[in-house]
């Protein structure tokens, strides 16, 4: 028998796979770009869900990893385009245009940052953790703004999308499917992770960290690994976002972006991994539709957020898929 959860998942997949064809058939090519954006933010929000929904770590600086991932692509492309050496790396490497370099670089850079920031901020808990992640993100934000080499507040143009042999990423449908595949791959990894013993300990940290510590678990290590993986996911999303926008700027790291990522997780359903896909779609579509009616659309969005928090904690996916959807 197909359960309710399973059927929601299958329908979601069907929609995701057929969307570009529907858009093309209806002569609405812009839908493909918008959907690609939704997929990319879904990856970022899903990565946040790992630490937020399963680990109970409320990070208000997750957009920092999005930014580092995006800047990795931007900087490598910039040097490749200019033919200049990357100054902060040894040797005379002049960057690259290859997606097979770009995306691993995004993931590597953001996990490295995640490791460092995690080491420092995971010493704190609760509201202190919220605030210290926010402060680190603000530091990165101001750092990129004042770094003239990479455009500062003006940002960097990404001259053309990453090159992957056999695939033309500048074709929007191809790029859509690349993002979809990466989303599914990330979901698969994250699913395996939270279902493993590791995931069990992570959930335990959220419930009662003292007890796990008493049982001899080094909870800090588990949380740090989760934080780093979440950073890596957001970094991947950032690398894709740089490709989609063909532009990178510090705005991507602004603290309101981190807020939006949290909104996506909660709106879609926290501790479900799939929920953030719905959350990302809901928030971006809401913005699209509301801003069509009025430039004052935020006055509608604000109360909607408040109401969701107060009365609809399970989120969209929880609503569709029922009780069993949440396992974090």
């Amino acid at each position: 028998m197909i359960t309710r959860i399973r059927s929601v998942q299958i329908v979601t997949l069907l929609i995701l796979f057929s969307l570009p064809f529907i858009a093309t058939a209806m002569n609405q090519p812009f839908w493909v770009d918008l959907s690609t954006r939704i997929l990319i933010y879904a990856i970022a929000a899903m990565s946040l869900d790992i630490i937020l929904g399963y680990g109970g770590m409320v990070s208000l600086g997750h957009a920092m990893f999005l930014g580092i991932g995006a800047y990795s692509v931007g900087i490598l492309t910039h040097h490749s385009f200019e033919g200049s050496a990357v100054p902060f790396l040894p040797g005379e490497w002049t960057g690259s245009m290859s997606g097979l370099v770009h995306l691993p670089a995004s993931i590597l850079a953001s996990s490295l940052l995640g490791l460092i920031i995690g080491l420092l901020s995971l010493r704190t808990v609760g509201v202190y953790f919220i605030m210290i992640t926010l402060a680190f993100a603000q530091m990165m934000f101001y750092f990129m703004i004042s770094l003239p080499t990479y455009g500062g507040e003006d940002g960097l143009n990404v001259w053309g999308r990453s090159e992957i042999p056999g695939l033309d990423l500048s074709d929007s449908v191809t790029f859509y499917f690349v993002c979809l595949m990466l989303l599914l791959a990330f979901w698969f990894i994250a699913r395996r992770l939270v279902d493993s013993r590791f995931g069990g300990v992570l959930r335990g940290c959220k419930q009662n960290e003292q007890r796990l510590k008493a049982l001899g678990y080094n909870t800090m290590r588990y949380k740090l690994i989760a934080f780093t993986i979440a950073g890596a996911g957001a970094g991947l999303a950032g690398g894709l976002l740089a490709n989609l926008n063909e532009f990178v700027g510090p705005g991507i790291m602004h603290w309101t972006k981190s807020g939006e990522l949290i909104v996506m997780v909660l709106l879609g359903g926290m501790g479900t991994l799939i929920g953030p896909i719905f959350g990302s779609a809901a928030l971006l579509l809401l913005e699209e539709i509301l801003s069509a009616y009025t430039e004052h659309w935020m006055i509608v969005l604000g109360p909607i957020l408040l109401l969701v928090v107060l009365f609809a904690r399970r989120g969209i996916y929880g609503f569709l898929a029922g009780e069993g959807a949440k396992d974090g």
Partner: protein
Amino acid sequence: MKFLPKVLGLCAAASLTLGMAQANDKPVKIGMITTLSGGGASLGIDIRDGFDLAVKMKNGMLGGVKTEVITTDDARKVGNAKQIATRMIKQDNVDVLTGIVWSNLAMAVVPSVTKAGKIYISTNAGPSALAGKACNENYFNVAWQNDNLHEAMGKYATDQGVKTAYILAPNYPAGKDALTGFKRFFKGEVLGEVYTKLGQVDYAAEIANLRAAKPEAVFFFLPGGMGINFVKQYNQAGLSKTTPLYGPAFSFDEGILKAVGEAALGVHNASQYTWDLDNAANKAFVEAFRAEYKRNPSLYASQGFDAAMLLDSAIAAVKGNVSDTDAFRAAIKAAKFDSVRGNFKFGSNNHPVQDIYVREVVKAGEGVSNKTVGKVFTDHVDAYASQCKM
């Protein structure tokens, strides 16, 4: 607007053209991406109002052709601007794009617009790259190159015999460009060059240092709220009596003066446009603008208006056949329209060659306003034109 019909835009266009028995020409579609919400919204609103006013004065027909303006808010976010531009190009199939306020948004959007073969008319942002190395035949700037107004203040300070100056700007590329522009024409000594945090609200520390340096004059570029903060605090520190302030028009447009009030009295600032300029096109514009919006037009409003009038002249020249891009581009480059600022033509890099004035903040009725007091540059060409290979 995105999925839904462009309700608002269409209504506006429809109400303007209603009852006009025009042959069913294909309408010209203009996409305006500008900042209408969030910080800095007043600039975008001025640009939009200026542009819309021109369309209205032409009865909804720029160059005699039915004109549809699709206006969308970018909320000053690069991602939004980029997404809107993609939609306008791919889905709405606009003929011309315009309206962006900020250099960073322009840098992100303009290359993709010109790459798609569309025309872009900049109503405000003029980053140096687009004027120099990265110039493009499809990109026109109807406002200024970013450095221009700062250069004018440097020249003016030198002309006034200022020997020593203290200069400050926010720590971001436009801030650095501003101080570079000032120094390009300032022949005196710079006693201090300070870069403050973007969005900074309190300048007490900088003002104390500045006083200790004892300069003859202070030049600053702090756009928007930062400038309001600085001027108020500068005045409260009692410095405006001893050390004159110089700045570009951005810190003293009509909206900002309302917020700063008499603290700004006597400040000199540079602009290519002020509402009191004496020419026929401007008189008609100011009168219509006041009647429509009950306020004086700012330089941003004039830039929006000029962009529409430029398009009006070019569309008329090609008789509405804007899909002939070569002819349309040539007609724009000819700039056969009466700019409200007076003298106007395009240089080799499609940026303005124009006069730049200095103005003083004076009492006007209840509040304060700008009064043009002299001309600093005649037919000024920007510093990057020679780097543009077109």
